[in-house]
């Protein structure tokens, strides 16, 4: 049974976190992947309730406000989905290379480079139709972000540089490039106290999804997640990637081109984060400035690990974390809890989900059904 769950990857200590499961083969197995995380989540909420209770707040109030702030009203839902939208795309930046056993944590850098590339594309095309500008922005954003993470992949493949470290360091380089361009060559001279690029123009802004106040990034994120799922679990490429992730030597022995797999997967991962950056520019900020470094890339790492690197699971987990973010404000306002309490909850969930890893394959209930 254990083998079905996926073999640990041989990338040392971090690799142990990454068991790459084969989903949906057996009904029992699928149920396991829903019930165990749900139990972990419930346990986290109980623990967090106790934690909040120790500070003299009523845990029932806590649960009520969390529900109300995240999912209780139509407005709360939109608030949650707005926050979830960039997370789906940045989580894919970690989840895709994870199939190859790589731990990429530099989604923030790809997002920033994607945003810069997209803004440059829009500013370079002043008098063309908005449709064309937006497509150019998306292509430029995905290309920029893709190259950024492919750089980490190339360093690992050709120079043996640890991709976790290199992708993280590339975040700081991306931020430095962004600050340099925004405060220097690309600066709008009228942006005195808030150095920014020129605006891409109201006509080029991508609006909201009709009927709701959530921008199109949510739809793009869901489409990208579904495509990633199909790529990983239903194509030869994805199968090859998973084989290489399981045992890189075995993959080479059977003649898989591991280098190509790494570069392409990293490029796709970076493209997802780059698209998130493009959406932040085209749907929210309207220009590039330091506001873009809001930590979506880093939050995406958490989402990917909670989703156990499954591209489809990234969607509900993003919505969950978006909901926690949305309800965090209400907790501050109604219960007087500091902002850090939300981080405590996210930390508890993270630990519980990782700890619950040990439960997979141990319950005869699931085995019986599966067998």
């Amino acid at each position, binding site marked *: 049974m254990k083998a079905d769950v996926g073999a640990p990857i041989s990338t040392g200590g971090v690799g142990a976190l990454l068991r790459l499961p084969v989903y949906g083969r057996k009904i029992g197995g699928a149920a396991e992947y829903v019930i165990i995380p749900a139990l972990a989540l419930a346990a986290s909420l109980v623990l967090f309730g106790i934690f909040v209770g120790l500070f003299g707040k009523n845990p029932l109030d806590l649960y009520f406000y969390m529900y*109300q*702030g995240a999912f209780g*009203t139509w*407005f*709360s839902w*939109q*608030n949650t989905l*707005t*926050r979830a939208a960039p997370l789906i795309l940045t989580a894919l930046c970690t989840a895709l290379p994870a199939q190859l056993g790589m731990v990429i944590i530099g989604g923030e850098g790809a997002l920033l480079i994607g945003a810069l590339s997209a803004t440059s594309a829009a500013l370079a095309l002043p008098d063309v139709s908005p449709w064309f500008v937006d497509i150019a922005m998306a292509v430029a954003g995905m290309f920029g972000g893709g190259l950024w993470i492919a750089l980490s992949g190339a360093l690992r493949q050709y120079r043996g540089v640890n991709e976790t470290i290199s992708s993280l360091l590339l975040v700081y380089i991306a931020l430095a490039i962004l*600050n340099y361009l925004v*405060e*220097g060559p690309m600066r709008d001279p009228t942006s*005195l*106290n*808030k*150095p920014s690029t020129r605006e891409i123009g109201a006509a080029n802004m991508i609006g909201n999804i009709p009927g709701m106040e959530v*921008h199109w990034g949510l739809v793009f994120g869901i489409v990208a997640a579904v495509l990633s799922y199909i790529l990983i679990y239903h194509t030869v490429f994805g199968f090859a990637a998973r084989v290489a992730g399981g045992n890189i030597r075995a993959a080479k022995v059977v003649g898989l081109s591991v280098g190509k797999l790494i570069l392409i997967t990293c490029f796709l991962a970076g493209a997802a984060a780059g698209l998130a950056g493009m959406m*932040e520019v085209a749907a*929210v*900020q*309207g220009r590039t*400035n*330091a*506001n*873009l470094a*809001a*930590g979506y890339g880093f939050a995406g790492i958490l989402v990917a690990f909670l989703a156990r690197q499954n591209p489809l699971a990234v969607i509900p987990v993003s919505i969950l974390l978006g909901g926690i*973010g*949305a309800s965090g*404000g*209400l907790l*501050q*306002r109604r219960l007087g809890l*500091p*902002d850090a309490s939300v981080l405590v909850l996210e930390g508890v969930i993270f630990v519980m989900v990782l700890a619950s890893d040990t439960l997979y394959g141990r319950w005869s209930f699931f085995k019986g059904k599966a067998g």
Partner: protein
Amino acid sequence: MNFDKISRRRMLQGTAALTVGSAFTLQRAAAADTTVGFIYVGSRDDYGYNQAHAAGAAALKGMAGIKVVEEEKVPETDAVEKTMESMINLDGATLLFPTSFGYFNPHMIKMAQKFPKLRFEHCGGLWTDKDPKNAGSYFGYIDEAQHVAGIIAGYSTKSGKLGFVAAKPIPQVLRNINAWTLGAKLANPKVTTQVIFTGDWSMPVKEAEATNSLVDQGVDVITCHVDGPKTVVENAARRGAMVTGYHCNQSVLAPKAYLTGAEWNWEVLYPRFVKMFTSGETIPNFYRGGLKEQLVKVSPYADMVSAEAKKKADEVKAALTAGTYTIFKGPIADNKGKVVIAADVSRGQTDPELEKMDYLVEGVLGATS
């Protein structure tokens, strides 16, 4: 309807429904009092920018009929739009103070257009007549307080070397560095201010490194313009240097090193705005002021500050308060020797040229780019 048939149970149900109904009305009535929302980009107890605003919000809490709701650590993304909407939809806020500079455009503007009956007040002074009329922007001439603190710094330094840890070389920051240095030069024309830019508003590690490096160079009075001066103040004090504070009073962090400081005075402004709002008076869309309008203040001087320094600082403070003193009065040269304000030119606080400041005055060691 046959009244005889109304059972006792029905009766009770009816009464209960009425009670619930009236409870709702009561709640509505309470909500009809003014709810004011405050949004901070960092944490409310950062001993800096956000704490200064939170102190202003706290000053409203005693006012009758005013309810204050607050949210901290809200990034300058669409998250702040949703926070504003959440305060409006779920808390009934009618007056909002998104306090961070980056909240203004496009976030607050978008919300002001969406909720034309509500009032939005932003800190930073960015409003122009193209922006919605139910939005406003206020700011304080804190360089006046920096100028006074600079005088104290100039009298207190023994090495003649001052230090300034700054975030970014933008007009607002340059204006503070220049005003502080010009103040110090009133005490001792030979002082120099070494400036170090950290590159961003909240970079505690770089701020600590900058502070250490300044002390290593012989600097003995340090100030800063970053979001949370805590790191700079504590590190400077630990290394035996003196400090003048910024944003709010940091004397509790370094009682033996804190000479004075330039503080915001939102405790005065926010009750003023809320009174205007509740009495139906329109809050000016563009509101600015300095020591005279009580938008900024100078921390009480420490005991170690010399009598001479206190006297000169009080003199200038009184003149600034009376409106008879100009900080940026020519001739002023920049640190490359170029005259930036000619001998016969006097740039008062409202002069738009000061908003575009892109130079460091003579005596400042450092470059804007």
